[in-house]
């Protein structure tokens, strides 16, 4: 772990990634301080203003300051990403461990379930889920969690299978270690590497997917400032009012790029370890 952190610190791309992520996290935490205006404050007199000293990113169709909305939008994106990935990582890891360790019927059932969920492209499945449950942030998180645990399950199962028949495991069992202990204190720490890679990358994908769903109208509903939703609204006012879609989109890109850069570097380290 420490070695990973050391290598990551030294890699310029990863550092850029971490900085980008931190930037957005800071925006989210200190939103009330950083945002100059109330993101919900409607002011028709000020609508459709292009970027200026007064309004850094301009104003939207209702006169709301876009910079403030972008800053507050970071909260929505980060919240969705962290909740979804926490749930899917926990659920997926648990099911992966059980599936890999116990094998047999349980393994078959879980893996068939994984296959079913993976037989529909994830965005489409999340779209159906969100549509069926009704458009809201909670339902988007639910729909995405239901779909994404499968990645973790597969990876953890793979790692578990690799370790299951080693002498290491045999020794543990002959010492009388009980199953939960084996699972959590011994197998799980060995899976941390791939789980970390998958989690980081998934955080990025979660932001991307959730903003895509918001763009379609399935996520946060107006007046909540969600980046995807802002692009969707601003789309009607192209090409004149280009700033309404440009800045939210750039933010999505920066945050996702941050997670991916970090995740790729962790992956390089982990695969080097495996070799």
């Amino acid at each position, binding site marked *: 772990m420490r070695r990973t952190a050391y290598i990551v610190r030294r890699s310029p791309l990863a550092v850029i990634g971490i900085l980008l992520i931190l930037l957005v996290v800071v925006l989210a935490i200190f939103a009330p301080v950083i945002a100059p205006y109330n993101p919900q404050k409607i002011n028709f007199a000020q609508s459709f203003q292009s970027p200026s000293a007064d309004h850094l990113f301009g104003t939207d169709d209702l006169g709301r300051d876009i910079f403030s909305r972008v800053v507050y939008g970071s909260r929505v994106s980060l919240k969705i990403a962290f909740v979804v990935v926490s749930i899917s990582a926990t659920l997926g890891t648990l099911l992966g461990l059980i599936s890999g360790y116990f094998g047999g019927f349980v393994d078959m059932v879980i893996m068939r379930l994984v296959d079913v969920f993976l*037989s*529909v492209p994830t965005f489409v499945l999340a779209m159906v889920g969100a549509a*069926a449950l009704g458009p809201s942030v909670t339902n988007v998180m639910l729909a995405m969690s239901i779909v994404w645990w499968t990645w973790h399950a597969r990876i953890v199962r793979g790692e578990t299978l690799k370790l299951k028949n080693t002498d290491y495991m045999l020794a543990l069992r002959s010492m009388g270690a009980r199953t939960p202990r084996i699972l959590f204190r011994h197998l799980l720490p060995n899976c941390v590497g791939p789980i970390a890679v998958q989690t980081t990358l998934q955080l990025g994908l979660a932001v991307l997917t959730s903003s895509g769903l918001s763009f379609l109208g*399935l996520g946060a509903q107006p007046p909540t400032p969600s980046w995807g939703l802002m692009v969707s609204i601003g789309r009607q006012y*192209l*090409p004149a009012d280009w700033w309404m879609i440009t800045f939210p989109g750039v933010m999505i890109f920066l945050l996702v*790029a941050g997670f*991916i850069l970090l995740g790729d570097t962790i992956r390089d380290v982990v695969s080097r370890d495996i070799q």
Partner: protein
Amino acid sequence: MIRYVIKRVLWIPITLWLVATLMFFMTHLVPGSAVRMLLGPHTSEAQIEKVTAEYGLDKPLLTQYWAYLGDLAKGDFGKSIVTRRPVLKELVTYLPATIELTLFSLSLIIVFGILLGVVAAVHRNSPLDVFARGIAVGGVALPQFWLGLMFILVFSYYLGWFPMGGRLSLTLTPPHRITGLYVLDSLLTGNWRVLGNALLHLLIPGITLALTNLSTTTAMVRSSMLKTLGEDYTLMARAYGHSAVKVNYVYALKNSLISAVSVIGLTTGYLLGGAVLVETVFDWPGMGLFAATSILHVDYAPVIGVAIFIAIVYAVVNLVTDLLYALLDPRIRY
């Protein structure tokens, strides 16, 4: 080998059945959601009760489930509330547009993904490598809907080089329908004007979809090439005197392509998913746009239909690529 093929082919209907089941339970999870699906959200209690009885929605879940499966087997995906036409009919109408866009993007991804991957591997750790990987990684991080809108802004509005959306200019009539793919049909009928116009309309949406899905292919080709280049036989080929170009781009590439095939199925899945967003942005009349507008009109039956359709296409593509992979690599035999 044959047994493997048969097993895989038999598995498709089972997977589709399970997918349909998944869809059914997702939409029937929330009480009243099925009715909401049929009527839209703004219905009164009395209406909900009436429709519930009429459509047998108050029957036990299992009964509804059997009816649902029976309908699907007959090809009845329900009716769209907005257009009042059977969903299946709509899907068939919109399918060619999505296929055309997906195929075009897939070709771009194959060509450029392999190119970038090979270049990155051959010039490992050089600026060229970083550049190639940068494009791939950058592509993934760009939101597809936003990139499309940016492209439209720059290339259609400000520069005027490309049309702003749609498959064909409104002044032209679509070519005689052979496959439903405008580019192919106009090529086959020698309709050059329509061909040029259709290509012009296809280019930017295709590039948008392709750019955002390059990274998987590039990464796979790169890592596969790196492995091949590290093998002894590559070194031996060089020792024999074959030029670097020949060894890298011909011999090593051929062996690395095999792994690239396995990624194509996965990429197609992402393309089909991303098509929903790109079609919406470019007004491309495909299944994705159909699904997106249905969502806006709270018309959920088409959304399910599209999802199942995409699952079918995805399953078939994965089967083909898996078989291709087994065929190409003599080491894999089942």
